[in-house]
């Protein structure tokens, strides 16, 4: 390993509680023993990484925060806002009231620390890839949201995750813990400016307790020079409900490795998402939905569009364990390829070890349908306008179902603008 990185790592452990230092050292060991992913690896075969994490410094201090983000107005009144710059929590505004808290790891109280000790880094496997281990090793801060038993938050929490420092890697972390019968909505907005070169390696861990309901939406607006490798895991207890949204429109290469674990009996989840890549963007989504408890249900509905030379990958794994009787699981991935040089891959996989299940999956990659265009044009819409209507319609089925409906309008606007701009610049049609 790069000696400078080792030195920086050692320095970053100063003043850190022993249990954290131990976790991070474990991360560093696993980091050192894993190679950077290459296209020869099955799980990375569609993705070309043009850097080595070893060559990057990692953020110790936050850069200058960005101006207010695109969702602030739409969300209106929020329960709290956490601002994370280059992986470091620079502000938490708002109080959650009795029974709930939001703190940075650095400011964690003893009670919070006890909770973190139980949860932090316990769920995302360090061997999953080098990024997962790097995150454990180098993440020096994070946001902890804790919602206590039978507590419902008054409005969504916005976690504004920014990258602002050039030529470094950052490791933002978010841990969400809902105790029993709690309810919360969390909006995570990832963003950076286009002129920044940055590698972001965020992790989101959500533990949804028995009977609790979590709405969690990620709004990925990284700038064009940002590469992101996100690990996200949602663990559902008995009768817990997770409604997960994933919107990906930014980044140079944005990879999401998401796992939804139905551990408790009667737990259910819905994953609704869209990605839209243009120019040379790559969006790589790996979604693992696992059913372990009995009587659980899941529904994955993801749509992706690519234009110009953009590429997208969806790899789904639906795994139903042997004892997960009466599971109902559906997975749909639809892709729209809008330019000849764009590409979309869709690879759904099923591993069903139990007989007593209802499962379905569907995956398509296609273009705008001529019959649809003809129909819309036959009413008087010019072709470019008809195309815009169809692209809008393609995404509308997803946008309409996103958790936290307040974000729908801004998402709609970004997606429409992306296509209309490509048309106006003559990149489409």
């Amino acid at each position, binding site marked *: 390993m790069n000696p400078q990185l080792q030195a920086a790592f050692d320095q970053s452990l100063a003043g850190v509680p022993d249990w954290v230092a131990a976790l991070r050292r474990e991360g560093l060991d696993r980091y050192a023993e894993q190679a950077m992913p290459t296209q020869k690896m099955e799980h990375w075969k569609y993705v070309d990484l043009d850097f080595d994490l070893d060559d990057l410094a990692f953020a110790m201090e936050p850069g200058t925060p960005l101006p207010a983000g695109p969702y602030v107005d739409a969300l209106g009144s929020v329960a709290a806002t956490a601002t994370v710059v280059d992986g470091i929590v620079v502000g938490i505004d708002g109080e959650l009231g009795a029974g709930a808290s939001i703190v940075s790891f650095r400011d964690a109280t003893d009670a919070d620390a006890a909770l973190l000790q139980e949860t932090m880094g316990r769920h995302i496997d360090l061997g999953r890839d080098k990024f997962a281990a790097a995150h454990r090793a180098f993440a020096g801060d994070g946001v902890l949201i804790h919602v206590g038993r039978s507590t419902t938050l008054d409005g969504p929490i916005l976690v504004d995750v920014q990258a602002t420092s050039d030529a470094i890697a950052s490791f933002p972390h978010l841990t969400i813990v809902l105790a029993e019968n709690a309810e919360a909505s969390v909006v995570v907005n990832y963003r950076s400016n286009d002129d920044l070169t940055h590698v972001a390696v965020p992790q989101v861990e959500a533990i949804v307790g028995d009977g609790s309901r979590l709405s969690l939406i990620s709004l990925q607006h990284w700038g064009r020079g940002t590469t992101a490798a996100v690990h996200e895991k949602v663990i559902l207890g008995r009768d817990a409900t997770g409604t997960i949204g994933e919107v990906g429109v930014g980044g140079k290469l944005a990879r999401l490795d998401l796992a939804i674990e139905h551990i408790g009996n009667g737990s259910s989840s819905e994953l609704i998402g869209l990605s839209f890549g243009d120019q040379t963007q790559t969006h790589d989504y790996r979604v693992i939905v696992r059913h372990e408890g009995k009587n659980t249900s899941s529904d994955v509905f993801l749509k992706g569009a690519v234009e110009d030379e953009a590429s997208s990958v969806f790899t789904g794994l639906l795994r139903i364990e042997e004892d997960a009787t009466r599971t109902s699981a559906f997975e749909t991935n639809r892709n729209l390829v809008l330019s000849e040089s764009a590409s979309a891959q869709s690879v759904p996989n099923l591993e069903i070890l139990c007989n007593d299940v209802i499962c379905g999956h569907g995956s398509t990659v296609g273009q705008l*349908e001529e*019959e*649809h265009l*003809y*129909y*819309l*044009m*036959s*009413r*008087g*819409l*010019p*072709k470019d*306008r*008809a195309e815009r*209507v*169809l692209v*809008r*319609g*393609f*995404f*509308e*089925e997803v946008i*309409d179902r996103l958790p936290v409906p307040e974000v729908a309008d801004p998402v709609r606007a970004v997606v429409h603008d992306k296509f209309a701009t490509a048309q106006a610049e003559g990149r489409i049609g």
Partner: protein
Amino acid sequence: MTNALAISDLRASVGSIDILKGVDLQVPFGEVHAIMGPNGSGKSTLCHVLTGKSDYSASGSILLDGEELIGTPVDERARKGLLQAFQYPVEVPGVGLEEFMVEVGSARGIPADELERRVAASAETFSMGNFLDRAINDELSGGEKKRSEMFQISVLDPRVVVLDEIDSGLDIDAVRQVAEAVEELRSPEVGILLITHYSRILRYLNTDKVHVMMNGRIVDSGGAELAEELEDGGYEAVRSRLGIDAPRPAAAVVKADPFSDLPFEN
């Protein structure tokens, strides 16, 4: 009376296959004309060629109120006022019917408040109020789709309306409703061309003229008596009166059965 639609020597082909072989037809403003014809006579092709579908190469003349449409793209024809109700309207997921009308209205320069008024009025006329917020044709029954087609047309300043098999696949009550909807579209500013395989819809409609299409041409035109002849004697009656040979099924290659002459069952 001026013609809403004047078609002369209209020919159309797909690849090397000629489908329309010189169609001549006039529909004056204010009138409803029916074109009847057996399967394969070219009726649906005529509709698509009028609408301007690019799958066909077409020649001849299609005049809308005196203005040539040949060579004009689909959307421009529609903006000039030629609108088709499709036999099989496609479902367009994610695009709401009213949202679509607003979009088209804006493309056609119809002021927003005027469009809103028209949508409300036409939704009332064609009983489409419950479908405005739903995706276009999404999970609509056959009859509802036909009503949706006519609803859309009525909102969009039609001058020539082409109704392709607007009565197919409907039960008798739905046919009657569709016929009433056609009467709603009738106006002194519109010419209506209704294409149908069956004569039953004509019982509920006041058609000004009936044309019979066979083998890519209009072979006969007349009034109610022609519809009655078709109703009584079918296309065969018209064929035999006009001395037209019954079409041979093109694809049915009759294979000689080598055992068919044997004097015993095999």
